[in-house]
């Protein structure tokens, strides 16, 4: 892992990996959504509204995966002092928050025809909303710690690790508490879902995951480039002051 600690080596890999992830992800996600909307059957009880599944589930997965990315990068930053870990955590925040918001909005749009309500304060919906607020808090803290005196600040990394406790709460909320939300249909190694729905769903999940990876790599390149430009300008400003 420390082989990637060199930003120059990381950039060499990210330069070809980022467009590959984004291009492939956009194509796969577009094909999967077209499959879900035009070719997958309507569900017996929910009818056509089941098509929201192909957007809602991948965004829920990526909302949680984004925070696990922040937590993993935070752990790497605190334990191994990996120079790219804090950058990776910052890069995960925006796409994670966007997919969490998409999950909440599409869930609300699905809830209205399926449950007869836009929103209920049950365990799954509330813990997902808490995740969105955690993202906002993490981004604000990360921004504030970056613009302080430039010394090492591990507060966002600690927040990232502590906030990860919400991810299993989201996952198990439908098992622990009575919920309007259904229990998981897909568990490790088995699925209660028909292949007619499962395959377009898995394809959409793969497509959006590749898009997520591409966006994270693009954000990392942007953050790294900004840091390099800042460092260079600072060095020049110091050298001009000295002479």
């Amino acid at each position, binding site marked *: 892992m420390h082989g990637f600690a060199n930003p120059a080596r990381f950039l060499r890999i990210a330069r070809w990996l980022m467009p590959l992830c*984004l291009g492939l992800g956009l194509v796969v996600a577009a094909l999967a959504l077209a499959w879900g*909307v035009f070719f997958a059957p309507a569900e017996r009880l929910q009818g*056509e509204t089941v*098509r929201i599944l192909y957007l*809602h589930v991948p965004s829920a997965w990526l909302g949680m995966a984004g925070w696990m990315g922040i937590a993993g990068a935070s752990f790497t930053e605190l334990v191994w002092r990996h120079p790219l870990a804090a950058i990776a955590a910052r890069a995960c925040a*925006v*796409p994670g928050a966007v997919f969490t918001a998409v999950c909440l909005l599409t869930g609300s*749009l699905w809830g209205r025809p399926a449950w007869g309500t836009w929103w209920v304060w049950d365990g799954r919906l509330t813990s997902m909303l808490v995740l969105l607020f955690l993202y906002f808090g993490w981004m604000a803290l990360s921004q504030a710690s970056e613009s302080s005196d430039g010394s090492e600040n591990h507060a966002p990394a600690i927040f990232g690790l502590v906030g990860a406790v919400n991810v299993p709460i989201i996952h198990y909320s439908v098992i622990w508490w009575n919920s309007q939300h259904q229990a998981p249909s897909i568990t490790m190694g088995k699925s209660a879902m028909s292949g007619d729905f499962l395959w377009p769903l898995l394809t959409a999940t793969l497509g959006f995951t590749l*898009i997520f990876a591409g966006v994270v790599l*693009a954000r990392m390149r942007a953050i790294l480039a900004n840091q390099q430009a800042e460092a260079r300008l600072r060095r020049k400003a110091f050298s001009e002051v000295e002479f």
Partner: protein
Amino acid sequence: MREAMDPWTFVVASYAIGVGATLGMVGWSLLTMRAAEKRRDESRKR
């Protein structure tokens, strides 16, 4: 009594939000990356 609702209204609204947000995020991340790398390259030249 069941409320009569057109399911496609909800499906189309969901796809507009999901696809719009995803494309917007991809576009924004590429633009900010390009601007940051241009800024770094210019700082090298100065």
